[in-house]
Structures are given as structure tokens and as C-alpha cells.
């Protein structure tokens, strides 16, 4: 009984099972869904959401939410894009290809810091502030870019290469999985996940994020610097959105003031919620979030393969979110029941 319970409480197990079942189901209809090749496609669908989800997860664990990530992504991507586009006219020389990476991250961090300041300084609810900056930052993106798209010819080929070339490539003539490779952005995304894990599970500040979300009232009594932690999580969320921004430029080869990053927040929050991060703060694991992202990736990759029209996609996403919520709910019910048992 108890074993079952603890297994059930392992939210990750649940999602892993969901993913496995889903893939098998699709695989029976379309065998090519279970190929390495397909895995690569799925992996290539996930990096941006994965990176964004790591930041969002920290924010939600700290009992906040960040709706502005999409706009931060767009803005920071645009800043880098414009650097690449105009560096010659501005500085008279071409900047090295990698400059966009730190730049985007820095810009994103700055925007996130802005969110944090508003929230912490004026004691405002994060959901409203970020709803405001969602529109504010998007507008700023239009203004700085004069509503002009940065075309792929301006994005350095090395940047674009990040989503094609890779460190580990199995030689073409190799019997199994010939030519299979995992592009850089996927590796970067998982790298971010690992770092997030180390940060949240193995540093004092990381644990303080959980503590803050778990009991905001008691946090200061335990000497937790609430202001600092809040600012930190929002800054990180911004920085990661910035990273996702440059990754967007790499993956899609352009930066567009209106498309780039719009709707990102919904995908990411969906992934995080599916991953079992509790909106009430204090609860959530990197593994769960990663699995949540992968589940969404599998769904996205399976639809066209099954010939399901794109029009059905968002309905399916919606259902997935609600199902995840239902599972979460039942698991928590178990939790509460066991709690009562403890008392008598």
C-alpha cells in the first residue's frame, strides 16, 4: 500500500508512463515514430520550451508566475539580431558570431530583473506585472526593430549551425543509426536542465527558493532574504528567456518582432504544469519538468505523422494539460489521506 503510494507520489513516474504509452500507441500505427530519426525530430522540437520551462519552474516554485517570457524572448532575440544586422553600420566591423549569446542572455536578465523590481519593490502580484510587461516588452521589440524582421542572411551561419551541427555524430556508414547526431541546442537545453537541477537541489539559495514558495510567511523568520530570492528567480527566468531567444534565431534563422516568442508562455506553463510543478509553490522537480516538455514534444511530432490536421493541435494540448491536472489532483488526494493517518 505504502509502496504504491510513494510510487504514485513520484509524479515523474506518472508522466514517464504517459510518454511511453503515447509513443507505443503512435508507434503501432506509424512504426517510423519509434526510430532514432524521429527521436532527433522530437528533441529538436523541445530545446526552447525546455530552457524556458527551467526558468518558469523556478518562478512557480517560488509561488510566482512569469507571463512575460515570450516577450522577453522576442526582445532579446531582436537585440542580438539587430547587432548582427547593423554591426557594420554601427561599429564599422562585423562582431564575432558568438556575441549574440551573452548579449541575449544579458538583455533577458535585465528585463527579468525589471519584473522582479516591480514585483518586489511595489509588492505587486507577479501575474499582473508580467501581464503588463508581456505587452510592454513586445511593444519595445517593435519599436527598436522599427517593426522590421531580421532575415536569415543576417544571422551568422555559426549561430544557425548550432541547431544542425553537433559534437557527437555517428558516421554515415555506421550500420545502425548512421549519421545520427544531436544538435548543439539540444545539448545546451539539457545542459541548462542539469545546471538547474544542481542549482535547485544542491545550493543553499536553491533550497531557499523552495522554502520561500513552501511558506512565504515563515521564510523571513528563517533569515531568508525574500527580496533577493524573488529578484533572483525573475532575473534567471529572464536570462533563460534570453538564451531561448538566441536559440530561436539559431533554430528558425530569423527574428520577427511579432511572431518570435509569442505564445511561448502558454507552451512553457503547460509543460511545467504537466511536469507536476505545483502552482501553489514549493513543489516541483527538474526531472518532472523535463518529462513534461518531452511529452509535449512527442505530441507535437506525432500529429503530422498521423496526418492529424494542425487544427486539432491546440485542442489536444488543452486536453493534455487538463489530464495532467486531474492526475496531479488524485495524487494529492492520496497525499492528504496519508497525512490524516499520521495524526491518529
Amino acid at each position, binding site marked *: 500500500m505504502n509502496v504504491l503510494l510513494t510510487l504514485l507520489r513520484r509524479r515523474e513516474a506518472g508522466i514517464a508512463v504517459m510518454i511511453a504509452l503515447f509513443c507505443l500507441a503512435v508507434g503501432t500505427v506509424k512504426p517510423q515514430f519509434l526510430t532514432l530519426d524521429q527521436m532527433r525530430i522530437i528533441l529538436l522540437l523541445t530545446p526552447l520550451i525546455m530552457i524556458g520551462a527551467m526558468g518558469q519552474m523556478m518562478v512557480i516554485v517560488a509561488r510566482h508566475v512569469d507571463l512575460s517570457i515570450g516577450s522577453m524572448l522576442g526582445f532579446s532575440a531582436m537585440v542580438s539580431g539587430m547587432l548582427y544586422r547593423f554591426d557594420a553600420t554601427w561599429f564599422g566591423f562585423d562582431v564575432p558570431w558568438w556575441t549574440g549569446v551573452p548579449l541575449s542572455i544579458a538583455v533577458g536578465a535585465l528585463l527579468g530583473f525589471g519584473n522582479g523590481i516591480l514585483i518586489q519593490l511595489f509588492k505587486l502580484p507577479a501575474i499582473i506585472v508580467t501581464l503588463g510587461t508581456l505587452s510592454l516588452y513586445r511593444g519595445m521589440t517593435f519599436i527598436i526593430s522599427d517593426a522590421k524582421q531580421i532575415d536569415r542572411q543576417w544571422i551568422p551561419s555559426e549561430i544557425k549551425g548550432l541547431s544542425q551541427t553537433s559534437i557527437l555524430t555517428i558516421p554515415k556508414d555506421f550500420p545502425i543509426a548512421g549519421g545520427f547526431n544531436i544538435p548543439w541546442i539540444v545539448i545546451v537545453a539539457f545542459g541548462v536542465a542539469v545546471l538547474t537541477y544542481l542549482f535547485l*537541489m*544542491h*545550493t*543553499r*539559495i*536553491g*533550497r*531557499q527558493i*523552495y*522554502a520561500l*514558495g*513552501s*511558506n512565504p*510567511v*515563515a521564510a*523571513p*523568520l*528563517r*533569515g*531568508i*532574504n525574500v527580496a533577493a530570492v524573488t529578484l533572483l528567480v525573475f532575473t534567471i527566468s529572464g536570462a533563460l528567456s534570453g538564451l531561448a531567444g538566441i536559440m530561436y534565431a539559431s533554430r528558425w534563422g530569423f527574428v520577427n518582432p511579432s511572431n518570435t516568442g509569442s505564445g511561448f508562455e502558454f507552451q512553457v506553463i503547460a509543460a511545467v504544469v504537466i511536469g507536476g510543478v505545483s502552482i501553489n509553490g*514549493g*513543489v516541483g522537480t527538474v526531472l518532472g519538468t523535463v518529462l513534461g516538455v518531452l511529452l509535449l514534444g512527442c505530441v507535437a511530432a506525432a500529429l503530422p505523422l498521423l496526418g492529424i490536421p494542425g487544427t486539432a493541435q491546440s485542442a489536444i494540448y488543452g486536453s493534455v494539460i487538463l489530464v495532467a491536472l486531474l492526475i496531479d489532483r488524485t495524487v494529492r488526494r492520496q*497525499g492528504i*489521506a*496519508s*497525512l*490524516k*493517518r*499520521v*495524526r*491518529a
Partner: protein
Amino acid sequence: MAPLIAARGISKQFAGVEVLSDVDLELKAGEIHALLGENGAGKSTFAKILAGVYRPTRGTIALNGHIADIASPIVAQKLGITLIHQEPISFPDLSVAENLVLGRTAGAPLARVPWAEMAREANHYMHLLGVRIDVTRPMRGLSIADQQMVEIARALASDSRLIIMDEPTAPLTPKEVETLFGIARRLRAEGRTIIFISHRLEEVRQICDRVTIFRDGNKIATEDIGNLSDADIIRLMIGRPLKEYLHKSGHAHIGELALKVEGLTLPGVFRDISFEVRKGEIVGLGGLVGAGRTDVARAIFGIAPAESGTIEVNGQEVSITDPSQAIGLGLAFVPEDRAVAGIFRTLSTEQNITAAVPWQIAPGGLIRGALERAMAQDSVRRLRIRLASLRQPIGELSGGNQQKSILARWLLTDPTVLILDEPTRGIDIGVKAEFYDMIGELAAAGRAILLISSELPELIALCDRVLVMSEGRITADIPRAEATQEKIMSAAVPQAREVAA
């Protein structure tokens, strides 16, 4: 040699209410010092000021002769001052071990979390306190007692020179209390200082060297424990001899059955609860924090209904699944936690008072301002609620007056059965006396009253019978004549029950 702590002229105000005035107190190194006083005397507030939770409105604190500005819990921690809060604070989603070390000032933000050592250390202290909990399990779901033990362990682990324990023993069993005292003595031997806050004189006598007595936010006296008899202490605590201010409202004549509870059970919370309350009768319900009293009350009132058992109101068997039904049946429930379950902080006092009787103020659906105003006004007058305007948000009122307003809310429903859960908790002494009078009057007016209280004198003085709960069961039903603190305590504490049996 300068005293470890020298507090001078400490005063504290909350929203213009002075809850501490000019308290001077000196603590020697290596003493166990008791703080005594009625509920709301200001003990916890003083403790919190020492621990940097509150800043004093006036006054200074010197450590070893040097003025120290204890600006925050972190500072207190650095100065070696640790507070065990009256209500244990915990981070339910973090493991027991983490709760134990959280807030250590040592280490950079990015310092590694030493999970292994952490667990080892936690186990060590848990063993020391003789508690058997898996330190890797999350805090959520621990009993209040266990949570308290973790708090204590935390204090020990922090190796501070001043440890303040605010009613640490309230939820503990005598055995646990003994272990705690053993440790306390050893700490004293190591030259550490302990402030021990408790309502239990015998405990104070067991381990304390000196006592300081608070009343209405003033320090009344500091004495060696040996120089004071219990009678002296109580006199100092409440200003006048006990019997005078707790007059027994004997004359209420006890009428027919109003509330009958039969085998009420909510698995895991309480079981087989049976008792009856008659019109005009005041039945006390005593026990330790976490005994399940509130949950029983909540079950009767339909907030968290029991799974089995029957409830009869005025002889009729009823099923209550929602408070609105309970109210319809003439039940009323003044909850234990005012802020959480009682008041609508930001809404006007008049709204708060009339909340339970909507249809009386809005015959036909539309609210009649004048009608509401008149009813609220009448309650304010009768209960002597002190406020500036009926439109004032109730949050701006003092605790006592908030509590009166909640009582007023329920009196408007003209209840036959009135359940009061810790009605005088955190209420200052003057208002408290008024409450005792009111409760007496209500009984005299033929209402049946179930009084849940952790304050033994209160139970003994006011109640015609005292029921005692322990670990979710009723362990005693003591008629007024035989009700003594000892009897109630021994029934409230689990071990004692086994001994008796």
C-alpha cells in the same frame, strides 16, 4: 560581569495598541529564566523582539554590555539568539532535516547543500530528543508535537547562547517534556541561557531558576523561583486572586437536551466522540493543542463532517453537511483562529457583524442600509465593542474587539447551541473578564454552550462539566465539583491515560 542580555525600557505597539510597555529584564549566562503571564500578557511579543522578529517601538537591548541592534532574525541568529516559536513554523514541502538546518547563516548562497551530513546531524538530534522520525520525509503531515520537536532540535543544533522556548511543552507528552528538561539542564551546565515560557507552574518549578511575570504588557516582577508560592505567582499574573475574576456563574438553571453527539468518528482525526450539552449548561472541552477538539467542533458545525456517528439538536436527529444547515438548526461556532476563519479583514465592521444573517438585513434581496446599521449598532452597544465607526474595516480593531464582533455576529442568529473555540485566545485581560461575564449571561439566558479552551483555570471556573480530549478521543468527563488542573492534565496527556488504565 555584565549580564548576557540587558533589555531596557522595551515597548511595542501594534496599530497604536501598546502590548508591551517599558519592560526591563536582565538575563544571566547559564540560567533558565521563566516568563509567566496570562494569555496576551506580552510574553511572545517580548520573545520575538529578542529574536529580531519585531523591532521594539522604544527601548534598547544590550548583549554582554554592548548595545545590539537586533534588526532581523538573521542578526539574532548571528548574535546566537534562537527562538522556538509558540506555533511551530515549518516548510511543509521541505524534508525534516532541511527544516532543521534552514536559516543557518554560515555558507555562501552557492555553497553546496551537504545532504548526507545534514541527515546525519538531524538524526543525531532527533535521537537526542528521543523522537523517531525519518528525517528525509517532508515536514507536511507531521503532528504538531513532532513539528515542535523539530523546532527544538533546530534550536539545539544552532548552538546559540540564548535559546527562547515559547510554550514548547504545550503539545508534548510528559516523557518528551522530561527529555527536553534533561537537555535544558545540560545546556545550562554548558553556560547557555534559556528563556522558558509556559502556563504550567509545576514545569516552571522543575527547571527554572528565576521567573519574570508579565501582566497587560508590563513587567510586574522578577524573582528567584524559590521566593514565590503558586498563589503569589497567580496573584502577580492576574492582579487579583483567581476566584474573584473567574466568578462561577452557578445560578444558570440547566434545561432540556440541546445538543447530543453519539459515536462521532472521522478516521485519522477523532473517533467515537459522544457527549451532550443541555440548555443553560456550559460544557468545557479541554486537551492539548492538536487533540482534535477543533476538528470535532468543525465536524458538528458541518465544515468537515464526520464519517460516522449521529448528531441530535433539540432531540431531533439531524445530518449537517454544511454550516448553513447548522445555522438553520440554531447552532453557532466562534472559531479558534480569528484571522483565518473569523473576520473579513478589509470589510466594514458592520458587514462583519451581519454576515451570518443576510436575510434579516435584506428582506426581499436588496440590502437595507439603515436596517443593517441599526442591528450592528445594537450589537456594538450590547457587547461594548470599541470602534470609531461601523464603517471601519474590522482589521483596524484590536483583537479583543474583533473577537467580540464575531461573537456579536453569532448572537444575531439567536443560537440555541453556541460552540466557542478558544474564545479568549490572544485577548487582553480586561476584555477577557468581560467575555467570562458574557458566557455566563448567555448560559443564564438558556443557551447551551460548548467551550473549547486550553486554559485550565478558564475551564474549571466557567464550566458545569469538563470533557477532556486526547489524540482524538474523549478521555474524561469531569463534573465541576471534581474539576482540578491535575485531573484535566492527566486526562489530556496520552501516557497518563495508560497509567490510569
